């Protein structure tokens, strides 16, 4: 206890430190506004935005999404999207603006709770300050503030529930845990498991408070088992390349910086002795780390913990007596520089991601000039854009979780892209009732080297396909049906 008390000294951040944190947060927000278009980068945001749009038109999308995979059951309850659409209905504000405001509000809320947790854990103010700075600069945080991602609310809830546990507000904690599976079942499962261990460690008698959350979780998984009837097995382990999957320096978005991981390794061991509930926290960190190879969500949930460990590692290296001060200075500076370099590289690459103006223009044109029931073929990475901007059905998108015939559809898309056989092409076009083909410059570069390859050859030589729209970067082709 005495030890904890001694560590507890200087746990509050000074006003100067708070100003720094706030300024850096504003700087990150400013960075995210530097995109050439208003719309967020990447794909994830468009799943959220599409669901909000659809909810406003047809609330049955909670159960059945008619645009994704040309129609599928929605595996999530989409509470975030429901909330945003209700606000949009009542305030008459654009859903996109509310979603953007949500991302800023929840980002700053996560940050405040993060600082409060560190205070509750009696972590000294230098570690708290550095952890917060590193967290703000982490690829995960930059990603969350720059998108309208469905990962934001789970991270908020995880931090909030942990904070409520530390403050012993169990009833509130129970309420949020009850809601959690309706927002994101995987994050809920991790959080409920983690909270159960924490409560068992502290007071087993309080375990009854978690029973509502167990109930929602069981109900949800029963629903998932029901959905399995409509979907086929999809191997998430295929093409796993461990390091590329989690390291942002190897191009993975939004991964962890390699320097953050090194700092975390140096911070891991000494922190064991200092922090309350360290064993449970370690269990959570290691579980999240392993899960990170399979789920981006786990990677995002891991970010605040890795930031604390990395800050602790850097300060350990800094305050330890070294035989050579020069060596120490270079090492600590290199580690810090590496962390910030990774963050800026990530920010640049992330913020310059598609979609761009040409893509949004092309898809808006498609929305205006095509029948509502049209099916659009493109790469699965363009699936959410087709749903959101054109409001048309895709064959497949990147949300393959419990999607109908996901594996077969992805293989067939690949076959359409690669074949030069017109008969084979026609069969697949008929099978999926495809009306339009959407191709952008990046996709073209990625899939074909010349106009004589695969689909490019067919587009050039098949009289039943006409060019429907073209701008500098996008081509939309229309299939003429007999």
């Amino acid at each position, binding site marked *: 206890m005495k030890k904890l008390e001694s560590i507890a000294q200087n746990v509050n951040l000074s006003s100067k430190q708070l100003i720094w944190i706030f300024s850096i947060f504003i700087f990150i927000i400013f960075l995210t506004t530097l995109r050439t278009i208003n719309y967020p980068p990447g794909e994830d945001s468009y799943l959220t935005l599409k669901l909000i749009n659809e909810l406003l038109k047809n609330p049955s999308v909670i159960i059945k999404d008619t645009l994704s995979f040309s129609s599928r059951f929605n595996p999530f309850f989409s509470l975030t999207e429901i909330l945003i659409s209700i606000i949009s209905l009542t305030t008459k504000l654009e859903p996109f603006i509310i979603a953007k405001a949500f991302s800023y509000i929840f980002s700053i809320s996560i940050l405040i709770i993060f600082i409060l947790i560190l205070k509750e854990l009696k972590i000294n103010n230098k570690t708290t300050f550095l952890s917060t700075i590193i967290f703000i600069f982490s690829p995960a945080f930059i990603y969350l503030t720059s998108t309208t991602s469905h990962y934001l609310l789970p991270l908020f809830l995880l931090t909030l529930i942990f904070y409520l546990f530390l403050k012993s507000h169990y009833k509130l904690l129970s309420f949020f845990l009850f809601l959690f599976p309706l927002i994101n079942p995987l994050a809920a499962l991790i959080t409920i498991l983690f909270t159960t261990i924490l409560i068992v460690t502290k007071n087993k008698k309080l375990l009854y408070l978690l029973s509502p959350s167990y109930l929602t979780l069981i109900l949800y998984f029963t629903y998932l088992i029901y959905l399995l009837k409509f979907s086929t097995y999809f191997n998430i382990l295929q093409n796993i390349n461990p390091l*590329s999957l989690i*390291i942002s*320096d*190897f191009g993975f978005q939004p991964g962890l910086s390699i320097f953050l991981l090194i700092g975390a390794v140096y911070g891991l061991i000494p922190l064991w002795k200092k922090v309350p509930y360290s064993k449970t926290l370690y269990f959570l960190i290691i579980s999240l780390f392993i899960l990170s190879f399979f789920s981006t969500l786990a990677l995002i949930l891991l970010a605040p913990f890795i930031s604390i460990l990395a800050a602790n590692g850097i300060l350990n290296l800094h305050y330890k007596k070294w035989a050579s001060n*020069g060596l*120490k200075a270079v090492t600590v500076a*290199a580690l810090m520089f590496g962390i910030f*370099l990774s963050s800026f590289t990530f920010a640049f690459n992330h913020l310059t991601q598609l979609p761009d103006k040409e893509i949004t223009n092309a898809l808006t044109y498609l929305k205006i000039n095509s029948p509502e029931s049209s099916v659009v073929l493109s790469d699965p990475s363009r699936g959410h854009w087709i749903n959101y901007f054109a409001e048309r059905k895709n064959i497949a998108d990147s949300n393959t979780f419990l999607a109908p015939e996901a594996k077969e559809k992805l293989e067939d898309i690949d076959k359409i892209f690669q074949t030069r056989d017109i008969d084979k092409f026609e069969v697949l076009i008929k099978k999926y009732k495809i009306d339009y083909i959407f191709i952008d410059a990046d996709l073209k570069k990625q899939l074909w080297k010349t106009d004589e390859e695969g689909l490019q050859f067919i587009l050039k030589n098949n009289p039943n396909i006409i060019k429907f729209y073209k701008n500098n970067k996008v081509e939309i082709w229309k299939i003429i049906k007999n």
Partner: protein
Amino acid sequence: MLQRKTFLLLILLFLLTLSFRLYFAFSYENFPLQSYFHIYQTEKIKQNPLLTNYDDLSYSGRILNYPPLFHYLLALTSFIPNNFKIIPALLFSLSVIIAFFIALRISNSEGTSLFSALLYAFTPIAIKETLNAVSVYTLAIPLIFLIIYLIIKLKEKPLFNYLILTTVFLFFTHPIFIFLTISFMLYPILLQIVNIKINENRKEAITFFIILSLLVSILIFKSNLLELGFDTIFQNIPDQIKQNFFRAINPFEIVLNIGLITLIFGLTGISYGLFKLKKASIFLISSLILSTFLLLAFKLIEFNLGILILGLSLAILSSLGIKTFFSYISKTKLHNFKSLFLILIIILVILTSIIPSITQALSLDVVSDKEIEAIKFLETKTSKLSTIASSPIEGHLINFAKRRNIADTYYLGAKDTTERFEDLKTLYKTEFSSVAKQIISKYGIDYILLSKHGKKFYEIKKLSFTDKCIKEVFKNEEAGIYSAEC
């Protein structure tokens, strides 16, 4: 302090290594193909010391990220006649001295350390890869072993400034430093397994090296890492030849390239050092061997480079193996035959290391005078803006003639390597002039070089297609140049 006799023998060994290398180097007029990459880079620095990372000749223009220290060193020593032959030979010969001192630290025996330095100097793979070659490894490998030596010495002396300097030199020499990074990551784990506490000075040096090396690699190869991700390790090598570069371990090839005695005594040294002596310094070099072996086993490094590091490290550790062997013999009834064993080992060293080294030195694959004649023709008789098609292995030679190539063997950062590799193969092997003309127009090819090396590479005797547009403008016994005039 070294005994006077040992000191003299060490100098003698250094001179022997240098003479051996220079003798064979000067018996060849030209260099192996790969050397022309370094010669070309050096020439570029001589013309413009402020190097940019854009190369307008390689792949007809590309970003080229390559640590430049070796090229600067060659450019700075260009006042020495034949510096391309002398400097690499001198650098490798100096590394024999470093190998001796590491071996001495490990075994505490001057005699066996001299013996292991001899094995180091005559490791067949080192002869094959670095003799008469303008090879960056002749600088990078001594730096690697110097860093290991300095880290071993750190336990007694705070040689941090030398360490920082050597580390910086290595970072600016070759990405090979990643081997050391991985082995330094393994080192504390190995020590933990056998419950040895890591010396604080060494711990600091290793932390410094790991963090800085990762930062430097990300700074140098940032664009490659973002484009290729983890696959950067495969250097963007075309799919068609990836298997040759990153191939599985073949025990026979290892014995042949490392030498039987080096292998036996090296492995004896490792097992005795790790399991019996449990000396932290032995763990340092063992972690380099282990990391190289693991990378080779998982086909994550170029086979020849892996074997080179493995061979040289085992040669250093063999000092402990030899010492262990003779101290074991002296405890048995065979101690009277100690001299006989020594003679037997020397014979075996001659048979498995020195003779294979001489054989390697006599059969180096270098560019012939006739091929150089063709290159001179390209340099003097063609337009400066010409694009020359050649096999990728001759790409650097085209750049050496100050002309653009279609592809060369520095693949990292180059565009469409697999496609270019395939197109060149089609150009040389196709029987249809229409196909050849399509490739000629795709890359804007002005001349096609067909040399002895190109013929061997594509397994052809002549160009398979004929066309009135393709005219022979140069020919000798080993090379031909064809102009594409349509």
